[in-house]
């Protein structure tokens, strides 16, 4: 995932947020947007959302399901789930390091 992160460029962060959003089940574009905004408190623009979705789909980390009305849900693939776990573990380790250095790590 770190390599994928580099390739995703400025879409690395939105891509991670999308993967996290899809981790509890398939969602369509608008649902992902609102879920990410609710979870982070920051807006996710539709242009950024679909630029990131296209990259994630191209890399096989997510896949599109059959559309419902005009809305097409997306879900994590096996590869996407593994990549997400790997990246979250890496972030967790990094966060622990930072917290330990700050002297605020409780674990």
């Amino acid at each position, binding site marked *: 995932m770190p390599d994928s992160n580099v390739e995703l460029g400025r879409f690395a962060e939105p891509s991670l947020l999308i993967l996290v959003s899809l981790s509890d089940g398939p969602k*369509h*574009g608008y649902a992902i947007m609102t879920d990410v905004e609710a979870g982070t408190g920051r807006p996710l*623009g*539709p*242009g950024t*959302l*679909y630029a990131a979705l*296209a990259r994630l789909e191209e890399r096989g980390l997510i896949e599109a399901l059959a559309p419902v009305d*005009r809305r*097409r849900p997306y879900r994590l693939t096996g590869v996407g789930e593994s990549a997400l776990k790997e990246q979250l573990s890496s972030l967790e380790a990094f966060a622990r390091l930072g917290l330990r250095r700050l002297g605020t790590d409780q674990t």
Partner: protein
Amino acid sequence: MIGLLLAMYPAPWRRRYGEEFRAVLESRPLGPFDFADVLLGALDARLAPRRVPGSAGIDGGPRMMLRIGGYGAVAGGLLWFVGIFASSMSGGGGIWIPVIMLGTLGLLLALIGLSAFQAYRQPVLAWAAVVIPGLGAIASVVGLVGMATRPEDAFMIGSFSSWAIWAIGLVTTVGGSILFAVATIRAKVFSHGAAIAMALSAVVVLLVGFGFLGGSTYGDVPSQLVFALSLGSFAASWVALGIRALRRGPIRAIAPA
């Protein structure tokens, strides 16, 4: 407004994501942030159309290179021939020097732009086919600048006058174009006919220019005619390659075998 925003995206992207994207845009009022975000998204999609699953489109860099090379070949071939022909008919460079210069720069762009595809199959040949005529084109432009700025031919580099520099550049450009034509034929891209015409006409230009076919390009009418025809064919072959490049289909057709 939403239709206009969608139209900013390339057609393959709209076919794949258009309906669901429209549904997202219609789900809530669009603010300036969303508007700017969609415009940036459209720019991103245009720069990388291959990212659309199932799209056969070529990505932004090669497509742009191909277009620049194609326009360079068409404009360069025409300007180069018109400039040289008119200059020789008028008995001097004069106002035609800038025309030849622009034509030469166009051919330089064509060499760079159109070689992007040859390198997939013939990297060494592709480099030689660009560097040699490219250096010739640059030398031509230097000589032309000298001729334009110092009509009395006081412009010199070493023992070479500006005219000599231009002539050396011209010969190198034409000779190097034979390599470019061979690279084009071997890479199986663009037009075989135009590439063969380029190689043959370049050979004739050099043979007549150096007097190997007899006569003189300065006084002998048949030789002048052959020289003019071969120069015209050489320029026309660049124009034909340029037109073919501008009509070029998906890059997959010329990807490595």
